[in-house]
């Protein structure tokens, strides 16, 4: 021990003491205690101030019950379904950041010269919008909304990107019970503004649908389904090529393939080909096990990851989200003619079993698109050397190519961080929405694992069981985080 280290030991401990005691008492001890509780039949109905029957050690019984509980699996599915909103939100954040950064650069370029022409055009467009609304005989609401829009535009030409950043970030900053209650009212089937705005649009749509032969919708639905398989096949081919050339490792290949084939597999299952889907599933599993064995024992490259791994996996999860959206629209398209036969009505959103989750996803995207993710991307964009783009332009690269080959790779470390944080939040999420908007309903459609934990623990009083849920959740979080960090490989450090 060096003398100055010894000299610092006592003050070091003293300065640390208040915090470390609190963390020991309210973080570390509870975690250990929670693990203990999950192995007992702790229940406040029997174990409280009035009736003290001691909790018994039951070993893994709570975990066994949890794994056998069909509802628990359904709630896990709900949690994953709600997490489908994460990729679109992250992409949205990225696109917003790119637009904002373009504007910020314009602002810097502008510094010193007059802003007059832009201000003038902003003001003129705003005035024209309001005038158009006035002349079209629009009553109060459209006029007011248009002048709000014109006001934002005008202020935007004054304050540049800073105003937009603030407006995009606000929903995330204020997110909480208040905004959930607000959205509950927005989604109200009869009095909410969303359905009020949708029903005239849907009337037009239903007339349009009735005018077209219903076969065309079947065709469009089939096309969407075909597209799902096409995406899977095409990208599976590319993934395979990347795997053979050693660009990605075996684990990346397997996870990527699983992501791509999930929706086609689900489709098979949905269409009632259990034997066929089982057969294909069996073949796939055998194939993947073979790959794993070969990679691990012969080529020894199970985890030889590099930076391509992470971006391939991100791309696969993106494509999977696209496949889910296609699947949803295929289902809607195939039912559209029969629905519109007697006029389309807007959905009941939160009280409808099938629409409650999409409703929450839409709200979630509104809340997270301008979150700190956007700010991190903005910061990341400013650190990319402009000269890279200029050099690429000279070589004849288009904007799109630059985006794929310069912007995206440079932002990969930030993306990995955002994905990890979003996954952690997503797996634990949904409690506040469920408690304030739906009470987990209708029929458990919006019950996530965190709400399940709450209702098991604090509504039924089964602390042991709830602790087991918490620990299963924790293990999933841990595994997911490790997997993502591994896939980003060594280059990030």
């Amino acid at each position, binding site marked *: 021990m060096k003398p100055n280290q010894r000299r610092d030991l006592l003050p070091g401990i003293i300065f640390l003491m208040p*915090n470390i005691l609190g963390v020991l008492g309210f973080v570390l001890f509870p975690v250990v205690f929670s693990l203990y509780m999950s192995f007992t039949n702790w229940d406040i109905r029997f174990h409280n101030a009035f009736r003290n029957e001691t909790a018994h050690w039951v070993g893994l019984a709570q975990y066994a019950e949890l794994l056998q509980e069909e509802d628990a699996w359904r709630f896990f599915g709900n949690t994953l379904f709600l997490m489908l909103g994460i990729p679109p939100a992250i992409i949205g954040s990225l696109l917003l950041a790119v637009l904002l950064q373009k504007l910020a650069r314009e602002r810097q370029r502008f510094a010193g010269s007059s802003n007059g022409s832009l201000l003038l055009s902003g003001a003129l467009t705003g005035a024209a919008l309001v005038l158009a609304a006035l002349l079209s005989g629009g009553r*109060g609401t459209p006029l007011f909304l248009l002048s709000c829009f014109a006001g934002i535009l005008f202020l935007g030409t004054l304050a540049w990107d800073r105003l937009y950043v603030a407006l995009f970030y606000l929903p995330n900053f204020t997110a909480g019970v208040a905004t959930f209650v*607000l959205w509950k009212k927005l989604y109200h089937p009869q009095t909410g*503004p969303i359905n009020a705005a949708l029903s005239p649009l849907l009337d037009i749509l239903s007339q349009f649908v009735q005018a077209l032969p219903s076969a065309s919708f079947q065709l469009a639905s089939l096309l969407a389904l075909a597209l799902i398989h096409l995406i899977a096949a095409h990208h599976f081919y590319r993934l395979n090529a990347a795997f053979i050339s050693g660009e990605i490792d075996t684990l990346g290949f397997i996870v990527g393939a699983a992501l791509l084939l999930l929706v086609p597999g689900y489709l098979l299952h949905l269409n009632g080909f259990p034997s066929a889907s089982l057969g294909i599933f069996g073949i796939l599993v055998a194939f993947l096990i073979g790959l794993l064995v070969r990679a691990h024992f012969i080529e020894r490259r199970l985890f030889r990851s590099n930076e391509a791994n992470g971006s391939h996996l991100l791309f696969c999860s993106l494509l999977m989200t696209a496949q889910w959206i296609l699947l949803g629209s295929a289902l809607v398209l195939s039912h559209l003619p029969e629905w519109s036969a007697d006029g389309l009505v807007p959905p009941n959103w939160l009280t409808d079993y099938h629409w409650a989750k999409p409703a929450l996803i839409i709200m979630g995207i*509104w809340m997270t698109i301008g979150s700190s993710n956007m700010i991190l991307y903005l910061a990341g964009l400013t650190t990319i050397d402009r000269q890279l783009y200029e050099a690429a332009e000279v070589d004849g690269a288009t904007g799109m190519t630059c985006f794929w080959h310069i912007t995206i790779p440079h932002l990969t470390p930030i993306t990995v961080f955002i994905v990890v944080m979003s996954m952690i939040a997503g797996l*634990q999420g949904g409690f506040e929405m469920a408690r304030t908007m739906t009470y987990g309903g209708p029929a458990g459609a919006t019950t996530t694992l965190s709400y399940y934990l709450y209702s098991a623990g604090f509504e039924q009083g089964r602390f042991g069981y709830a602790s087991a849920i918490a*620990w299963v959740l924790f293990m999933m*979080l841990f595994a997911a985080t490790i997997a993502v960090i591994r896939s980003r490989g060594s280059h990030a450090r």
Partner: protein
Amino acid sequence: MHARNSERLASPTRRRATSPSAINKRLPARFALHLLLSALAFTMALPFIWMVLTSLKSVEDINEPGWMPTLLNFGNYLEVFEVISFARFYWNSIFIACWITFLQVLTSSLAAYSFSRLHWPGRDTCFLLYLGTMMLPALVMIIPNYQIMVSLGLVDTFVGLVLPAAFSPFGTFLLRQFMLGIPESLDEAAKIDGANHWTVFWDIIMPLTRPGLIALTIFTFVAAFQNFFWPLVMLRSVHNYTLPVGLLYFDSIRGQSTHLLMAAVTLSVVPMVTVFVTLQRHLVEGIQAGSIKG
């Protein structure tokens, strides 16, 4: 190759930046960008616009499909305070959030000083272990913490709300990031002049960590103000409710009166908007510092 190309390109770029004719040529593109972004921002703001407009409606036009109130009825806001002890919820929330913020910033900055400035043996190992606790999900802690509060008799008290939130590994991590950026020669010089650790900490390090302290204050305050799960579980009596729990309570008793509910929602959003507008500048720095993994 990039470097050579960029050298060749550096000068035309700079010229383009200053030439007024080039700026005017780019005007349509720039204006389209403004139009697109303001349309997006407008869409994001729509729920808030509806919220404020509805909170000003009177009972008569609450079921009208139009968004505009026929008469601006500011009385709704007063009625919220009459229907329910909303002022009390406000006070509770602010009181609790202030205590949590104060304690967390204090304990975190002390710990961050120890982790960044003092060179005791085993410090970095200890810090890594400490960082590991950041990975523990809050959901795991809630049930045992509740049981602890039951045993201490702190259920339905403010102390029970404040204590578990007063110590955070994240705060320590964030402030350590900021403190590592301060050159160590400063405190060496102060120590030669005979300053003790407390003086170095309080008079030198703390003032220089100001941006970090502000960022942590905002994060902690907002998180404490918006926290829902823990108060919901802990609080029993209505006069102890914090704003989110109180709002839910209001929704359960008067949720049918949309105009009153929206007035209450607006009132609970206002503190956040105020914090945001006044301190926006400091937030960005904090978000960036917090994301750089040590």
